């Protein structure tokens, strides 16, 4: 295992073993190499939150016998704890669904929660998820928030801004619940909501097998959400970043086929192709590779290469980029403050709140870390 890219290729291939099980032997041989960097393998899996997924795959394809004992111990532990956590989250999803039903609302689960209810992963313990994302229509948005509050969930801090204009209600947590909840009125940031919103998702959404009480987006919308959320909303595309958690989702969502064309505007198609091309290369899923990403010049791929080779450089660029975004957001808020009295009051409220300053410090610490 010479470099980070090779390690990423190995992880990608393990995650997509379902579509090329014949590679299991080769993967087993790689594990047996004396120079194999086990800590790097685990660190990479941990950084991308796919250690439980990797364990599930390795077990399924009989590769655990090649794993160094102490690493296997760690992976099995993580898998089982995650399984327990996800089983609990499924109960919480049931409770939330029931509470919304009582108010005539059928939730559309997104991302991790969606994969859990539609049983995308063979074993409930394989997909790590941070929170429960659900989408409701604009009409039901505040009623849904009230319903979830009745279950004991709440946003612990003061809310700055108009919640009816936010993409989702600030993340609510409860003492009795393992996963916090985000109630979305928009699946992605406002900027993209003209062509990807509740109305569009609701046209194709479906009830997952065995569950008539909730909905999930169509497969192609799940793919689109995965791409838009990670690559465009979080600006991963500009930074040449990706997450193996998304790679694993995409590999399963693809069902071994090329994705159907989506309603993505043309201006984002190249970015999507660049991304799928890289995912296709890492996971060895050639059908995902797109001509424009493979043959043409791609800033995304160049950034990715730099990230893998010069970690300090990518970290510095990321830091600079995030700080730039923050400065832009602060300037924009101040600009609004000059024009609008309500915005001025909001700014005053923010800067005089201790919690707001705490949040900013926490954000900065997280960024530096």
């Amino acid at each position, binding site marked *: 295992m010479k470099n980070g890219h090779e390690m990423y290729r190995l992880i990608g291939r393990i995650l997509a073993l379902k579509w090329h099980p014949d590679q299991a032997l080769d993967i087993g041989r790689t594990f047996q190499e004396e120079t194999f960097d086990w800590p790097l393998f685990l660190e990479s899996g*941990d950084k991308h939150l796919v250690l439980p997924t990797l364990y599930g795959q390795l077990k399924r394809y009989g590769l655990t016998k090649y794993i160094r004992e102490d690493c296997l111990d760690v992976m099995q*532990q*993580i898998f089982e*704890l995650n399984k*327990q956590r996800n089983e*609990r989250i499924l109960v919480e999803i049931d409770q939330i669904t029931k509470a919304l039903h009582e108010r005539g609302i059928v939730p559309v689960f997104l991302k991790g929660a969606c994969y859990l209810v539609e049983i995308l992963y063979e074993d409930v313990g394989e997909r790590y998820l941070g929170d429960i994302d659900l989408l409701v229509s604009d009409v039901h948005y505040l009623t849904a928030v009230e319903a979830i509050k009745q279950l004991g969930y709440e946003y612990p801090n003061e809310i700055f801004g108009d919640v009816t204009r936010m993409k989702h209600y600030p993340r609510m947590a409860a003492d*009795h619940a393992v996963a916090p909840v985000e109630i979305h009125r928009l699946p992605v940031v406002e900027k993209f909501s003209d062509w990807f919103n509740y109305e569009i998702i609701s046209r194709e959404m479906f009830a997952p097998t065995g*569950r008539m009480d909730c909905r999930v987006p169509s497969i192609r919308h799940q793919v689109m959400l995965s791409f838009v959320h990670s690559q465009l909303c979080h600006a991963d595309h500009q930074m040449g970043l990706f997450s193996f958690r998304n790679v694993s989702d995409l590999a399963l969502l693809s069902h071994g086929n090329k994705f159907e064309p989506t309603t993505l505007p043309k201006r984002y198609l190249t970015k999507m192709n660049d991304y799928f091309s890289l995912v296709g290369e890492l996971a060895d899923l050639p059908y995902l590779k797109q001509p424009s990403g493979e043959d043409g010049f791609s800033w995304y791929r160049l950034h990715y290469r730099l990230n893998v080779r010069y970690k300090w450089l990518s970290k510095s660029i990321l830091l600079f980029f995030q700080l730039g975004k923050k400065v832009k957001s602060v300037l924009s808020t101040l600009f609004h403050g000059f024009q609008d009295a309500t915005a001025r009051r909001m700014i005053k409220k923010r800067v005089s709140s201790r919690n707001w300053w705490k949040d900013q410090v926490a954000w900065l610490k997280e960024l530096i870390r």
Partner: protein
Amino acid sequence: MRKIFNQANFRARRVGKEYVVWFSATNQFVLLQSTGYFILKSFAKGMSMKRVTDDLAGRFGINKRLAAISVKTFKRSKLQLVLEAEEKMDIITKSDYSKIGLENLKHFYRIFHQEISFFYQNELLRHAIHPLIQQWEVAEPVNLPVEFALFSDEAGVTFQKNKQFVGQWGHPHLDQMKGSVFFELLNVLYNKGSDDWLMTMHAAAVTLGNKAVCFSAHAGGGKTTLSTLMQLAGYQLVSDDFVAFGYPDPLIHTFPVAMSIKQGAWQMLERTAPVGSLSFQERYFSQEKGTFVYHEPLHQASLQRLYPSSDVVFVKYDKDVPFRWKQLSRANGLRELLPQVWLSPGPDKAEKFMEWVSKTRFYALTYHDNERAIEAIQRLFT
């Protein structure tokens, strides 16, 4: 927040290379690797992440980077929250069904001298329970019956006993609902309370008189078919679908609800041996369940017989695998068993359960060759 990760709040026993840990606050078992158990103990002592990482690396001789990942992911799993959530969520699940009329789908049952009125809110719930206990049905009660009721809405099923909330389960967990109903029936049958039981297991059990062997399987996994095959081979059924262990001695009690077998399996059984030779009180095709249902006569004497059991077989019918038999490690057996078991709360019972596990052997049987399957199980009785 209570400290579940407090040394006084959990008990553990080594099972092979792993630890089975019981948490008193939530009455839950968790299987942990030796490193995981070490981290748990260290956190319970109030040690910092850095200290736990250093100690873990030193104690197990593992790379510090691995130790750091292990500790970090243990923390990320939010095990404490998972355990706490388990019981707290129950508080907010109770629905108000007091205004629903109870007359539509009401049945009365008599088990020896005890009478039960059972309300099923819809046909689906009735189908889940009634065919299995209809041998005890009576036209109307003589005495004041115990009242059972099952209600359902989109999110799940609620079970009440004498108008008191017993439990609620989401639709994917209806086996647990059935287990809870059977548990209450068991209390009526044996005139016992919750404290008198160690655990109940989603399994079937057969005996030759001296001891019993349990078969556990997922729904449709073939445990009822196998129990019937064993009956045809001269064994006696102790319980199908639901096995109850008493306390303080973990002995299996007879629980004679009817058995329900899919049409295809029934035809296979009839080809294998004369099913009519069994002493079934009644057997018939249940249109409700789309299965053959049969039951044995209930005698007061059979309730007096209790059986020890130290063998659990996880059964899986597979048309592609003639016969595969494998003894599982205790840890792997426990991993399979825990989701199928409901354990009475209390540290003494947890200790007793762990003691029972340490003496129990676990096997995995995958089969469609009946004769070899029967032979393998017969060997457990020798």
